[in-house]
């Protein structure tokens, strides 16, 4: 039997020590009426056969298209050393570092991850990560609710709709009020956001770049929030944060991110990485694991899980969150990725992405009837273009010819049925942008 080492002789010996007549007898406590009505699973297969089956399934997925899909999830180059190092079994096959002396590898890596992400967001504290960027946003909002004792969340409509729908499911039983402030042609309406803040508001929730790719400086909004006792919560894109004004510089209280762009493959939606950072005022509201530095009995530096009095295994229903573990391996990958690229590598990556996107925008808007949705508003590696036809039509036509031209904003925004969201990364070649532009020109004729 695969992966079970016990021979019939071993089993006889073990049963002898236990004093049980048979393996079946060990299950005698399960009453007859609870026994399975069926257990109709396929017979086991060899490793070779299972792999062949999965290879056949993998081939049914079209992954060789030229793709301009982003929507918050980006296809970046992952250095080979990220896989090689993160796959080391000492990291890979360990569990949560409950025994710190035997887990210094995992613990120091998380500590370094916490350091790296705080440097990126410019806020002082981080946790060891949560499931994904959407969970991070919800948990950030709950930090604000606990911190302020208020129950209203003012959310910019240009925050990813993928996260806003998660936020509304999670908060539905918690008697929280979600106020959504409409975007203006893909830009955040800063005046309306500021106006929406009041004495009942726990947090103002924004994103940079926003879902449309548009860039903002939220400094004035965050100052107004602070004056009103409102927590400023921002979701960011870590790669672009190497060049963009940081949440810390804008005066944010909590900054979260989807960490997928840091060394994690797209993998059809996960596993990803929820990055969470905050300032000192909010650190005790942080959910999940956190690693701190300390010393051992000999005075040597070491690392432990800390501030555990916030957590469910101690506080049970009074914990800051129900979250138990983190995405340790994904956090490790992100850290290794950031170390391999370094400041210069990440900056070059961001600049290449932005440069390609600006080139693409120039090529695409040179086509008759194609315009940038947000006009002159600055954007990073992603931008929205309005087309003279329904975006789905273009997607259908082009994807049949090997180009996935972007994401149809009409899926989430009424009135934007003709708008396509186009993303570039450093992997997007200028040639493929040219092919896309020519195909689009042809499709719109």
């Amino acid at each position: 039997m695969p992966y079970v080492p016990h021979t019939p002789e071993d089993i006889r010996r073990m049963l002898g020590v236990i004093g049980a007549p048979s393996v079946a007898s060990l299950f005698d406590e399960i009453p007859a009426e609870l026994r399975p009505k069926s257990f109709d699973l396929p017979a086991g297969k060899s490793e070779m056969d299972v792999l062949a089956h999965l290879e056949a399934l993998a081939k049914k997925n079209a992954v060789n298209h030229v793709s301009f899909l982003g929507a918050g999830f980006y296809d970046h180059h992952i250095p080979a050393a990220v896989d090689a190092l993160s796959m080391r079994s000492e990291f890979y096959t360990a569990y949560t570092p409950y025994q710190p002396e035997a887990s210094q590898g995992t613990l120091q890596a998380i500590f370094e991850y916490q350091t790296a992400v705080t440097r990126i967001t410019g806020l002082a504290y981080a946790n060891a990560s949560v499931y994904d960027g959407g969970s991070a946003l919800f948990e950030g909002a709950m930090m604000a609710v606990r911190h302020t004792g208020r129950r209203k969340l003012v959310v910019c409509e240009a925050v990813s709709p993928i996260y806003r729908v998660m936020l509304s499911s999670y908060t539905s039983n918690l008697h929280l009020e979600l106020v959504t402030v409409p975007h203006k042609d893909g830009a955040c309406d800063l005046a309306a956001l500021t106006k929406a803040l009041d004495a009942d508001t726990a947090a103002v929730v924004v994103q940079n770049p926003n879902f449309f790719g548009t860039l903002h400086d939220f400094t004035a909004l965050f100052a107004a929030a602070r004056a009103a006792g409102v927590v400023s919560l921002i979701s960011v894109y870590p790669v672009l944060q190497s060049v963009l004004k940081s949440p810390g510089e804008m005066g944010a209280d909590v900054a979260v991110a989807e960490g997928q762009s840091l060394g994690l493959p797209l993998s059809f939606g996960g596993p990803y990485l929820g990055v969470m950072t905050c300032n000192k005022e909010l650190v005790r509201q942080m959910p999940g694991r956190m690693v701190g530095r300390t010393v051992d009995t000999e005075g040597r530096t070491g690392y432990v899980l800390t501030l555990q009095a916030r957590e469910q295994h101690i506080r049970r229903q009074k914990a800051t969150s129900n979250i138990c573990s983190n995405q340790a391996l994904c956090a490790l990958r992100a850290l290794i990725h950031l170390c391999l690229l370094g400041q210069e590598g990440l900056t070059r990556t961001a600049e290449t992405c932005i440069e390609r996107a600006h080139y693409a925008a120039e090529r695409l808007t040179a086509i008759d009837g194609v315009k940038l949705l947000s006009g002159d508003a600055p954007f990073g590696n992603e931008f929205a273009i309005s087309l003279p036809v329904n975006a789905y039509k273009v997607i259908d036509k082009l994807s049949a010819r090997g180009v996935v031209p972007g994401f149809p904003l009409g899926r989430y925004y009424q009135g934007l049925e003709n708008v396509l969201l186009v993303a570039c990364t450093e992997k997007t070649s200028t040639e493929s942008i040219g092919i896309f532009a020519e195909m689009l020109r042809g499709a719109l004729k």
Partner: protein
Amino acid sequence: MNTVFKKSTEGREGVWPVKPEKSAADLLPAGLLRGKSAGLPSLSELDVVRHFTQLSKRNYGVDGNFYPLGSCTMKYNPKFTETAAALPGFTRLHPVLPQLKGAGRMCQGALEVMYETEQLLCEVCGMKAFTLHPMAGAHGELTGVMIMAAYHKDKGNKKTKIICPDSAHGTNPASAAIAGYEVVNLPSKDGIVDPDELAKVLDDSVAGMMMTCPNTLGLFETNLPKIVEMLRSVDALLYYDGANLNAIMGKMRVGDAGFDVVHLNLHKTFATPHGGGGPGAGPVGVSERLVPYLPVSRVEKLEDGQFFLNYDFPKSIGYVAPFYGNFGVFLKAYAYILRLGGNGLIRATENAVLAANYLRKRLDGVLDVPYDRVCMHEFVASACKQAASSCHVRALDIAKALLDRGYHAPTIYFPLIVKEALMFEPTETESLDTLDQFADDLIAILAEAEINPDSAIGAPRNLPVTRLDETRAARNMELTDDL
């Protein structure tokens, strides 16, 4: 060992892309750019490789060390599942692809993996339907309780409470609270749920009860049929915490036994690597009456054999994940189930229970085993005898002494209802030689501690660090290299 940031040398080249022609300052208004550099380190590729290779050597993992961490099912994770999950046909697949009309045809293989995995889990658990969206066990719990809440709301039931036995994982009450419920703590009797105690707290305001079966003491809940009947009488739902599913595959099906909701921990029962604390996957299964409330989207199969995502479920709790859950994780669980097949899963359960009972017998008498009866896949021992004796050796000391001998420690001080608890879960993948050597070493540790308590109290001595000052960590809050 220095942090990676301390090893940075200005100007040293890492894995850099070609420098673009234009800088951010050429492309964007100055007001949108960072003033202060993020200060990520400058390291060569070898600097990074050496740092993380050395760090890895300061860790125990299942591949190198027996890891009998109770409640965590640290079984061996077959390597071929990594090969499957690394296929570019999966890793390169963008998650929004199926949201483009007609583009479902571009990801049929991935949708089939999802559909088939759900079908297999339904059969393993006897549930009507599964969602793969929850990204960890605790996330599955929250999803499950949200589904329960949606059911009651839809029926117009006024329910405010969830019952959790005192042996429950801490995540159970925490998840119930985050879903908006008041938590009622239920004391156990003889290590299991007592129907008389349950009767005292059960009324119309109870939305449901969260059970782990076998429970965290490794004991089967023999009153289960009675409990199911009692809950049904007040239209309360029964939740199954799947942390311990490795004990019952093919021996009991959650749905057949009367549970309405179940979450699984694929990283436990279905052998996906724990990764130092994640990523996991916590799929949720439901009985027929709860199907309408499952999260969206749901994968369906058309008559022509094509797969598609259906978002049209008006009673659904909505979205709990950005997409379809941790695809890269449940793909490995799918591969594992196919490899083992039905009989392989039954053998896994049987041998896990056999190994736990064998180890229990080997340690009985050396440690106190408070519930001395046949256990399931794990058992809880207690060091109360040692702690109370003149040597004052506690569960913590025994755990640290085990680390010194190259073993990961069992779970300690959990469940909370056993003093000086040591919770052992050997799993089915450890050989008899390993179990015997472990038992011999543990017996030797205890014998030595009786003569020389410091041998355990001063442990560990053979690891990169000795015991760490946790109070200082909490007080100083040095959570980054910059604080």
